[in-house]
């Protein structure tokens, strides 16, 4: 689905991502892992176009489009949904409006919020007319996921989506990601710190360390040595 080649990124003078090569195979769930501050969020932001890329390319498969040269607002139209770290809810829009924001990228006639979002997160239905910023942290996280699903994505990018969410909902999120992934062929790129969750939903993993990709493979291959080496402090 996405193939990243030779990606380098800088914050001002500091070189944050180094020569990243990475594949996100279609229909699979890839989990991106690594310690705090290694560049996971930065990599996702590069894919989303929020960060300028110094060199390298990010090919989106079906259309063979180079995302580096595509504007941010094209991404939902290309079928990319995004759940950022820190929720990034529109605080003064109501829950309903937060969800509606993505509707115009859908073809006319399909512009309504799918019901399964409310089945997944019933709390959103209860709080339809409350300002997004008033929701509790976990409710906001649920809203953020719901909002990304509204655009009917082919590729879903999630940055620590379970942060601050109550355990039973975390399970459900895991289930739904798996379901979307397995049953509907949704491709998923997930950043996740919690190993059990990662193991549960992921098909593949990919580890970053200090801005470099250091390991990649099927989830089964994520062994203790790797964990010790790259995921513990």
């Amino acid at each position, binding site marked *: 689905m996405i193939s990243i080649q030779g990606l380098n990124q800088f914050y001002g003078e500091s070189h944050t991502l180094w020569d990243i090569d990475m594949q996100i195979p279609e229909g699979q769930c890839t989990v991106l892992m690594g310690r705090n501050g290694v560049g996971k969020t930065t990599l996702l932001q590069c894919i989303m176009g929020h960060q300028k890329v110094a060199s390298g390319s990010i090919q989106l498969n079906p259309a063979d489009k180079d995302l580096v040269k595509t504007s941010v*607002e094209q991404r*939902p139209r290309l079928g990319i949904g995004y759940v950022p770290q820190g929720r*990034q809810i529109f605080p*003064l*829009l109501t829950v309903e409006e937060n969800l509606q924001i*993505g509707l115009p*990228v859908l073809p006319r006639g399909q512009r309504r919020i799918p019901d399964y979002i409310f089945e997944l997160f019933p709390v959103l239905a209860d709080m339809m007319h409350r300002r997004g910023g008033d929701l509790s942290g976990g409710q906001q996280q649920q809203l953020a996921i719901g909002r990304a699903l509204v655009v009917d994505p082919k590729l879903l990018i999630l940055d620590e989506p379970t942060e601050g969410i109550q355990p039973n909902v975390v399970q459900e999120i895991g289930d739904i990601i798996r379901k979307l992934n397995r049953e509907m062929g949704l491709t998923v790129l997930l950043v996740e710190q919690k190993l059990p969750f990662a193991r549960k939903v992921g098909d593949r993993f990919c580890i970053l360390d200090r801005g470099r990709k250091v390991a990649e493979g099927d989830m089964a291959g994520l062994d203790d040595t790797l964990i010790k080496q790259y995921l513990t402090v």
Partner: protein
Amino acid sequence: MRQLRSLGLLTLILLSSLTSLQAADSDPVLAEFEALLSSSAAPDRARAISLLADSMHPDTLSLLAELLEGQLYTFRGDSHLYRVPRHEEGRAAERLLDGETLTIERVRDFRRVAVNNAQRTQIRRVMALTGLNAESSAIRLQAVRQLMRDADSATIALIQDAYPTEENNRVRELMAVALAIHTLADSDNEVLQRDAIDTLSESLEPRARNSLAQFAQSTENPALQELSQRALTQIDHKVQFYKGLETLYFGISLGSVLVLAAIGLTITFGVMGVINMAHGELIMIGAYTTFVIQQLMPDHIGLSIFVAIPAAFVVSGLVGIAIERGVIRFLYGRPLETLLATFGISLVLQQAVRSIFSPLNRTVETPGWMSGMLEFNPVFAITLNRLYIILFCFLVFFALLLILKRTALGLQVRAVSQNRAMARAMGVRSERVDMLTFGLGSGVAGIAGVALSQITNVGPNLGQSYIIDSFMVVVFGGVGNLWGTLVAGMTLGIATKLVEPWTGAVLAKILVLVFIIFFIQKKPRGLFPQRGRAAED
């Protein structure tokens, strides 16, 4: 059957329908009229008017009208009088005596026959005499009023004659008042005087009150004195009431001007967060657009406003879009710096207008349908231009409300201003949204300029005089809240007008500012604050 006492008048009216039949070549009246009118001494010109009025000349009314309108000119070449409908190079001038026409070569060769106030009053009086029998009740009313100005027994007699057959109530009432004033002053008959006081006590005409006051002073009859005193208090109460009503209207009208001036800013500043110091200049551009439109269609001033509104919207909107594309888009995320750049833009726009249109104020005419007053009674009338501006203000307000609430643009612009990056990630074309929104706010400012051009200067300083008030209104109402802007503008308008009679305009303005300062202490986020967790820090 109306009795016409004045034979002259009858003839005049009869003959005036036959004007064109008269051969004009050797008309002695006209010749004398011309001679007297050409004199530079005002008394001569006054005599010319009386001459014409007494002459029963068929053209009397039209000539006097032309004189009043300033369409009679003396040509330096032959010292004759000419009719000049348009005093411009290349236009035609028609000699009064024989109808010969000339083409104007040098404007200064034709000097207008000027009339002064005394002569104007004289002409209007002549016209009023015929006006009493006019078809239109408005003209009859006007005529009675004119004749009341300094009524003598002859005019009173005319009114007396017309009174019984007058069908229109308002005219009748006014006539009754005129007659009562006369009675009160001239008659010694107590019964008649009582009736007159009665009539006058019902009237709000200033003349009625004055004559009552005078009568109460001068009469020796204590019963009548008391009666007239009572009548006076009755009138004064009513006057007081209408004065209150008037103040309220003034407040709303000032409020609507403030709202109009501020409402574009509610969008660019309130919703988008751009501190747009050039907002005033966008208003100014709207006003200048009105001026240009009127220049382009000088013969259709009445229509010009309807052309000017969309035109101003488009022109100011395009300028706004140019500002947004050229400057502001580089500054998103640095909201305070938009102040700096737009301050620069406002300087440039002001100077640009000075260069293009000169530093002088430009004339924007008030179309006929906007001038005049809606008169409820002699002490309470509302001016039409203000009334239309109030209506227009509400129209703009609700249109905007609809756009922001019912279209995708409204939602998207709020999303973009709250979190640009995320809005883009959700597919919002933020650049387009910014451009359109800024264009919308600017266009609305332009529309406000059309309205303001009807009540104030159209000059390079126009914008500066509204920018401070506009920011006050937006902030007082609560940034980003359209309703807040409406309520704030109206509140400040009414407050100013309530205080003004007590303190004078200067102190009123100071007090309103102090009020704003203290009000913000009580409600640190304006009348309609953004609420909730997110708004708190």
